């Protein structure tokens, strides 16, 4: 531990002054001057020196605060001595988080039956949990960095929307079809990227996602272009519609109709889909194919030397991840009743990837918690729509600096000798492709 002299006030002041100067130059034109196209197409501008001064002042003050915090907390050794009894209690609590969270999730519609907003939010969070678990197969297990995951989500959503509106197929027929189609696209994307690694893989998947989105926008005859697809049928409970008429579920059960029934049904539907994703992932990890994914993530060359067929390994990872994305997409289409290309932008892919990485890739619980934190946090800023993405971007940068390995830095191993021990995520190399 270094105990060199703590820099004095003069040092902090100088540092803050430099930060403020940098900020002054950075913001001088972008904040200090505002441009706008006038009614005649001529550009006008006006100055906002007050805002500029406020920004520079904030940077000055902020950098003093940051520097002080760094000095007070930085040198303190972070290894805390925790008594063994407390530690065992903590680890017991840690193991209890998942079951408690699951039970709570099951009870959400009961507890918040009258609060439509919370139910809608819970459905949204679960959709992202499912997407995160699906992408986790590709990124967390197989180590293939996929920046175009939203493409499969889009394929699933459009498959269901088009099949249902054009051919009148029901949700339960379309759901597997959407999954299969998305998996097919996953394999199709898998072929060109088989030979690529790391960042190249990321950029190709990003390009692929954009291609799908652009085709959806421009193929107006099929997809309706920017207008999207409207009138997507609502799901039925195995053929029984959740509507307020004589054939509806409410009439059959003899209870009073309420629109909340459908919301609750959707909630349990996405919960079931998410749990299916989780269960399949956990099962697959114990099978040879899951082991092959993890081996591929750790070292592709060694993997090949061991005789593992990397082609099928990568393709199955892409296909499995894509299939869950497709399921989620079909669910999204039926929940919204309307889809348009706007829902499938790169920003969506980045959000899901951020959830997976923040969760500590490979940790199923971590992904669920990260989805809750991210989507919940996003909701908090709903009033400040303009600043939402700004804050999201900043949070992404800061979280990466603070915890590059994610919120939950360990996970359960697939195989273990005698007793189960958590693996620190520092020991695994996700995202190498």
């Amino acid at each position, binding site marked *: 531990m270094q105990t060199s002299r703590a820099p004095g006030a003069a040092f902090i002041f100088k540092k803050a002054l430099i930060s403020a100067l*940098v900020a002054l*130059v*950075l913001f*001088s*034109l*972008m*904040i200090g*001057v*505002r*441009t*706008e*196209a006038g009614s005649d*197409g*001529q*550009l006008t*501008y006006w100055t906002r020196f007050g805002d500029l001064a406020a920004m520079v002042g904030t940077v000055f003050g902020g950098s003093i605060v940051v520097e002080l915090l760094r000095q007070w907390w930085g040198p303190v050794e972070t290894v805390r001595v925790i008594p063994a009894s407390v530690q065992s209690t903590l680890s017991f609590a840690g193991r209890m988080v998942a079951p408690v969270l699951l039970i709570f999730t099951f009870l959400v519609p009961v507890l918040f039956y009258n609060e439509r907003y919370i139910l809608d939010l819970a459905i949204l969070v679960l959709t992202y949990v499912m997407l995160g678990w699906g992408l986790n197969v590709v990124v967390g297990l197989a180590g293939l*960095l996929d920046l175009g995951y939203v493409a499969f989500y889009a394929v699933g959503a459009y498959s269901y929307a088009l099949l249902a509106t054009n051919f009148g197929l029901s949700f339960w027929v379309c759901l597997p079809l959407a999954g299969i189609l998305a998996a097919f696209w996953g394999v199709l994307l898998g072929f*060109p*990227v088989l*030979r*690529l690694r*790391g*960042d*190249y893989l*990321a*950029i*190709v998947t990003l*390009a692929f996602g*954009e*291609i799908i989105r*652009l*085709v959806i926008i*421009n193929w107006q005859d099929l997809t309706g272009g920017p207008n999207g697809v409207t009138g997507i049928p609502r799901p039925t409970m195995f053929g029984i519609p959740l509507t307020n008429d004589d054939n509806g579920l409410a009439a059959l059960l003899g209870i009073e109709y309420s629109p909340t029934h459908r919301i609750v049904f959707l909630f349990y539907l996405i919960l079931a889909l998410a749990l299916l994703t989780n269960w399949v992932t956990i099962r697959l990890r114990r099978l040879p194919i899951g082991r092959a994914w993890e081996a591929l993530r750790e*070292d592709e*060359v*060694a993997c090949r030397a061991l005789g593992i067929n990397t082609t099928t390994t990568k393709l199955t990872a892409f296909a499995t991840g894509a299939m869950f994305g497709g399921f989620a997409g079909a669910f999204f289409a039926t929940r919204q009743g309307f889809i348009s290309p706007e829902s499938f932008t*790169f*920003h969506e892919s*980045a959000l899901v*990837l*951020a959830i997976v*990485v923040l969760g500590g*890739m490979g940790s199923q619980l971590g992904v669920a918690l990260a989805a809750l934190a991210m989507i919940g946090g996003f909701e908090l800023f709903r009033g400040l729509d*303009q*600043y939402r*993405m*700004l804050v*999201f*971007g*900043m*949070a*992404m*940068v800061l979280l*990466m*600096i603070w915890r*590059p390995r994610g919120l939950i830095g360990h996970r359960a191993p697939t195989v273990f000798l005698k007793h189960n021990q958590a693996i620190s995520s520092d020991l695994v*190399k*996700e*995202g*190498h492709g």
Partner: protein
Amino acid sequence: MDYFAQQLINGLVLGSIYGLIAIGYTMVYGIVGMINFAHGDIFMIGGFIALITFLILVSFGLTAIPLILLIVLLVSMAITALYGWTVERIAYRPLRHSFRLAPMLSAIGMSFVLTNYSQVAQGARVKPVPPIITGGYTLHEGAEGFVVQLSNIQIIVVITTIVLLALFTWLVSRTRLGRDMRACEQDQTMAALLGVDVDRTISMTFVIGAALAAVAGMMYLLYYGLVDFFMGFVAGIKAFTAAVLGGIGSLPGAMLGGLLIGLIETLWSAYFSVEYKDVAAFSILIVVLVFLPTGLLGRPEVEKV
């Protein structure tokens, strides 16, 4: 034939702009080994700063076009370079020794920050600029009345690109900084042991890349007469495609790739469909990576175990 010649000229001009952005990608990738996702947004910021500087200069009654151009060029290069420096300091330096996904995600985060910062600061609407440089030359008058034209602004874009490329090649091959950059590209630890200030070199790489992107932003503003907060994303992917096509890490490759992407995009729009021009550019990226993973002028990467 005349139509083709005209499209060739347009494509080369667009390609020069892509090439200037691509150099920034190639340099950062060569040295830090990572895609700088925020680079496209740096280009967009450069365009905005050029626009604002133009407005201020014109409103102060400056009319001598060469002087305006020079001042705008210097101001936007300087401020945008500082943006590049700041981005490196905030989002990349703390993560330099982290695992690979971390800097990539923080770069994506930074890209969101820059995009939305411009939207909040300057509004979401497209900012049109009246043409500042007009006039040009007629190269050829066709039989059906179709004329092949080379406008002054096209000449300026191409000449600026050539000058900057020459300057930059000199910088990398002949100066101390260039030598340090090449040393860091080979082996950062070894370079540090031999007395190269790695931190400073990486900072300078971002600064130079951002300055070149600023020039590209200014040229884009002059050529297309508009900027908006979202233009960095697509331009960024295309410039990255150009860098990959030319062979990432190779400077002449980035320029060549930029020209090719510009040509392909323009010719595709001219002969097929404008709507699918981005699809064509992205498909080329995929095809190139499948058949030429190291690009046209790239060196094959040796796989070590």
